[in-house]
């Protein structure tokens, strides 16, 4: 027995051969049996029987030839598949006969499936696709956890990373890398900015990627004044025209002469798919980082082949503890946390995408319910056909299979069209998403196709099974007796149909509430008062090169000193821009910096863990007037707050509320301290201004200290000089900005170029554009949910319409009797719309309960509304039955036109 089971392979092969040579097979079988019969017949004749007698005896002895042939033939063929094929052909024929049904069902399924595949393909790209490096599951990110906050994930201090690498035995290697950073190419004769990634020399080898040309960094390569760089293949093509002799060429990066040693292959780029031009080596062991205060590189480790994540976590805990003891000043309470690199980079995306997947699942469910409804209605009208087939001997199983094959065809057709829609969907997603990470690499790959196929099958089963069961249950006697009249469906069938309609409304309700909440949030975001007047203000960003002649590095340690050229550049630029025609005023401001602590002179020192913190920005004295930030007390900074004068500071209202609740802030003296450097000179508060939003979704204003760029120290530690070198120039136009934004931008760029032709200017946009961008995520989310909710609404409306339509057809007879008995048109109208209204109200009730549970998942994207905002719920809850009523109206009108004579003649 076991022998033939292992031999199923030749068996399929033999069957296939028989299938292909079907005619020859039949002839052979015939021959074989005829041979036997002939031989026997001769023998019988030899025994003395007559020709006829011999033939009969032979036949008797052999048995039923036709039956035997049938048996053998069945043995050799794929009977199951062949009847299935018959079913498929039959299903295709019957479906083609009702094109309207086909179009509606396939289109709605395609919309549902396409939406699912689109969201899945984004999820697939971010969450399920392995990192594009060899053995990606061995790559881990290692974070530092802050004192007392075990769950925090911070980039480690660079020196800590270097120590980890030296002390770890579980990791093959540990490298440090930045994300991409805009880096000026000053000194290279082009006012251009490159996008650079700062990495330790072992970065490439750790990821397992080799250069296309040249080499990667050697361990020794990380000098300060001349350095080597590796460039990306895109940059090689763009700037060097794919020059094969590019290795050895030099250009200035951040003012440092840098020699190209290698070109990386195409496809090796940044983690999030944004532009990346070059890699700059970092020496993690440099004395620059010995203070352990530079937390701007993330650590990536490759586990040894047999090591596990938990072993690594254990070892890193021990190492972190060792570092705590060795460097108590900086590392006290600092732990280490090992997370798979993939999760560290893309884990956040789930929070965005899973709610969206839920939303499109709702859309698909509605489409399924629709299809089920229509299929069911069709079966009701085909009851006669089924009864006939059943009485002719078709088994229940065969009938059910017939229906499942039909729904399978519908599902697959929907899936095929849905795949086409997925391509469009991905394009739409890209257009809406703007700078969503890795968005360009979202494609329909094999996994997306498999997902689509699986969803199509699941859809087919979901859609087909209920009607199939019902059809199989149908009493053939009853159906045949009733003939073609298709009298009233059983109560069970009607109840199912009503339940389906209710669930459609409920699902649509959930989506509409979600979309409503998002729209509400976006509207509120757009109405936020930013605390200044953003109209007619054009903004420009620039960063002065962190190199000679603007910056000199003090020997030993990590201290950089700005030269007077920097403030001179700022001052000249402001002067030039201010006198440009069309400019009302101009000001400058540095990026937000929250890392400042301070003490107040004359106040008792708070305990070390309660040191007050504040945001800090350098500004030009003209900034407040340019942005029209209201003065609440004291004075603005002025032109007389010069380096020689006493240092002044302006604080915001939140600062006053938090730190001087019962005192007059004016005249108080502050001693500011950043984690990198303590200031020696006190700053006196001279004014209080209103709070300003940094972006529109900014929920909680931070305390702020504004100081003049002219009243700053000259020494900066650990790269903090950047906060002095990066500036945003705000220019208020004297007239409406819309018309002259371009000319104004050109004028400012020209002014910059006249002062320093190498200085790039970026991020040129109006403040309104800037704010619009800051709520891009919310708008993107709102747009997607709007689209899904609209599809859901449309499908639900079609569903209600179909359901009511069917119910009117089904009750034509009843309505006819009612009319004949004197029912008014209005009462017939009420009869139908009343049912629709009842169903939609039930749907709204269920949907409301569902929405209350589900909208919480988008809580984090909401602004100014709660996830259970009563207004949104009320609007949707009232609007949805309204739309359902409209969908009911056409069938209802048809019902009023029922001619009692025609309806009764059906009898």
């Amino acid at each position, binding site marked *: 027995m076991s022998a033939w089971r*292992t031999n199923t392979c030749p068996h399929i092969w033999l069957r296939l051969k028989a299938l292909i040579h079907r005619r020859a097979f039949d002839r*052979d079988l015939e021959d074989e049996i005829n041979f*036997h019969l002939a031989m026997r017949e001769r023998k019988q004749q030899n025994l003395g029987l007559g020709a006829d007698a011999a033939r009969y005896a032979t036949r008797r002895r052999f048995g039923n030839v036709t039956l*035997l042939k049938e048996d053998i033939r069945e*043995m*050799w063929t794929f009977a199951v598949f062949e009847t299935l094929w018959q079913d498929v052909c039959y299903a295709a024929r019957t479906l083609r006969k009702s094109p309207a049904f086909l179009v509606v069902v396939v289109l709605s399924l395609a919309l549902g499936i396409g939406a699912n595949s689109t969201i899945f393909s984004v999820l697939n790209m971010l969450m399920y696709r392995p990192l594009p490096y060899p053995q990606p599951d061995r790559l881990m990110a290692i974070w530092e956890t802050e004192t007392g906050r075990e769950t925090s994930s911070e980039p480690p201090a660079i020196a800590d990373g270097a120590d980890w690498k030296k002390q770890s035995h579980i990791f093959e290697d540990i490298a440090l890398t930045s994300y991409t950073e805009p880096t000026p190419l000053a000194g290279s004769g082009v006012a251009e900015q490159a996008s650079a990634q700062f990495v330790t020399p072992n970065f490439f080898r750790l990821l397992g990627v080799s250069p296309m040309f040249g080499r990667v960094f050697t361990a020794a390569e990380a000098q300060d004044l001349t350095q080597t760089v590796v460039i990306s293949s895109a940059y090689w093509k763009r700037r060097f025209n794919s020059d094969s002799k590019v290795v050895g060429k030099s250009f200035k990066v951040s003012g440092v002469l840098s020699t190209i040693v290698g070109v990386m292959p195409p496809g090796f780029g940044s983690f999030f798919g944004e532009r990346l031009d070059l890699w700059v080596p970092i020496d993690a062991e440099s004395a620059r980082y010995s203070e352990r205060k530079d937390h701007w590189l993330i650590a990536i480790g490759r586990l040894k082949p047999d090591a596990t994540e938990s072993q690594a976590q254990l070892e890193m805990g021990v190492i972190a503890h060792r570092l705590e003891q060795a460097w108590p000043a900086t590392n006290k309470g600092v732990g280490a946390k090992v997370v798979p690199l993939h999760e560290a980079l893309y884990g956040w995306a789930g929070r965005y995408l899973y709610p969206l997947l839920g939303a499109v699942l709702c859309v698909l469910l509605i489409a399924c319910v629709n299809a089920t409804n229509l299929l069911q209605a069709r079966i009701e009208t085909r009851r006669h056909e089924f009864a006939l087939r059943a009485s002719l001997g078709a088994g229940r199983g065969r009938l059910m299979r017939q229906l499942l094959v039909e729904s399978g065809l519908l599902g697959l057709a929907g899936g095929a069209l849905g795949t086409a829609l997925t391509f469009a969907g991905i394009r739409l997603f890209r257009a809406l998403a703007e700078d969503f990470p890795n968005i360009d690499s979202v494609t329909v790959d094999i996994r997306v196709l498999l997902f689509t196929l699986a969803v199509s099958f699941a859809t087919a089963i979901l859609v087909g099974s209920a009607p199939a069961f019902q059809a199989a249950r149908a009493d053939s006697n009853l159906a045949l007796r009733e003939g073609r009249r298709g009298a009233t469906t059983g109560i069970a069938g009607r109840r199912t149909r009503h339940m389906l309609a209710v669930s459609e409304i409920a699902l649509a309700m959930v989506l509409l509430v979600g979309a409503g909440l998002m729209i509400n949030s976006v509207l509120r975001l757009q109405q936020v008062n930013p605390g200044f007047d953003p109209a007619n203000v054009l903004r420009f960003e620039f960063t002065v090169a962190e190199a000679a002649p603007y910056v000199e590095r003090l020997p030993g340690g990590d201290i950089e000193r700005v030269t007077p050229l920097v403030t001179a550049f700022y001052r000249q630029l402001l002067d030039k821009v201010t006198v440009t025609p069309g400019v009302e005023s101009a000001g400058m401001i540095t990026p937000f910096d929250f890392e400042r602590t301070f003490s107040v002179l004359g106040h008792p020192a708070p305990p070390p863990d309660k040191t007050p913190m504040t945001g800090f920005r350098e500004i030009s004295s003209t900034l407040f007037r340019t942005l029209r930030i209201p003065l609440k007390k004291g004075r603005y900074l002025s032109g007389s707050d010069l380096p020689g004068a006493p240092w002044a500071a302006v604080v915001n209202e939140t600062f006053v509320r938090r730190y001087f609740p019962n005192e007059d802030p004016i005249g108080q003296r502050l001693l500011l301290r950043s984690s990198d450097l303590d200031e020696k000179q006190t700053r006196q508060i001279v004014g209080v201004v209103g709070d300003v939003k940094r972006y529109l979704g900014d929920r909680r204003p931070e305390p702020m200290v504004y100081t003049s760029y002219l009243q700053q120290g000259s020494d900066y530690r650990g790269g903090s000089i950047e906060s002095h070198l990066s500036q945003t120039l705000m220019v208020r136009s004297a007239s409406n900005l819309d018309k002259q934004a371009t000319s104004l931008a050109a004028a400012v760029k020209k002014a910059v170029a006249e002062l320093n032709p190498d200085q790039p200017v970026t991020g040129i946009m109006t403040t309104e554009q800037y704010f619009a961008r800051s709520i891009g995520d919310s708008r993107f989310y709102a747009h997607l949910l709007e689209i899904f909710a609209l599809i859901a609404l449309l499908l639900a409306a079609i569903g209600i319409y179909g359901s009511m339509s069917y119910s009117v057809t089904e009750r034509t007879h009843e309505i006819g009797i009612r009319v004949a008995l004197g029912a008014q048109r209005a009462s017939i109208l009420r009869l139908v719309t009343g049912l629709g209204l009842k169903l939609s109200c039930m749907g709204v009730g269920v949907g409301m309960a569902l929405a209350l549970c589900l909208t919480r998942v988008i809580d984090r994207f909401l602004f100014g509304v709660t996830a259970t905002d009563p207004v949104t719920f009320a609007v949707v809850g009232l609007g949805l039955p309204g739309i359902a009523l409209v969908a009911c109206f056409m069938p209802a009108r048809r019902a009023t036109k029922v001619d009692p004579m025609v309806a009764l003649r059906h009898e």
Partner: protein
Amino acid sequence: MLVLKTLTRGAMHGYAIAEFIEQTTDDMLRVEEGALYPALHRLELRGSLTAEWGVSENNRRARYYRLTAAGRRQLGEESARWDRMAAAIARIMEA
């Protein structure tokens, strides 16, 4: 099992197999001869037999069946099982 055993004597066509079984069992196991053919085809599909067309003693086209290695193995297993079964039945009958 009978068919397989018969074929250990070499390739045979269906008629010869039927004749052989009938003769050696003295017509004890005579059934409808046609029933032999589904059995042969099933064994062929299972891989226990192979079949090819040849020319019979009297110059007619005939389908010859031949035992495969798998068929031989199957015969071994089945005859062993038969022996055990027969022995068991014999013991019961003797008891």
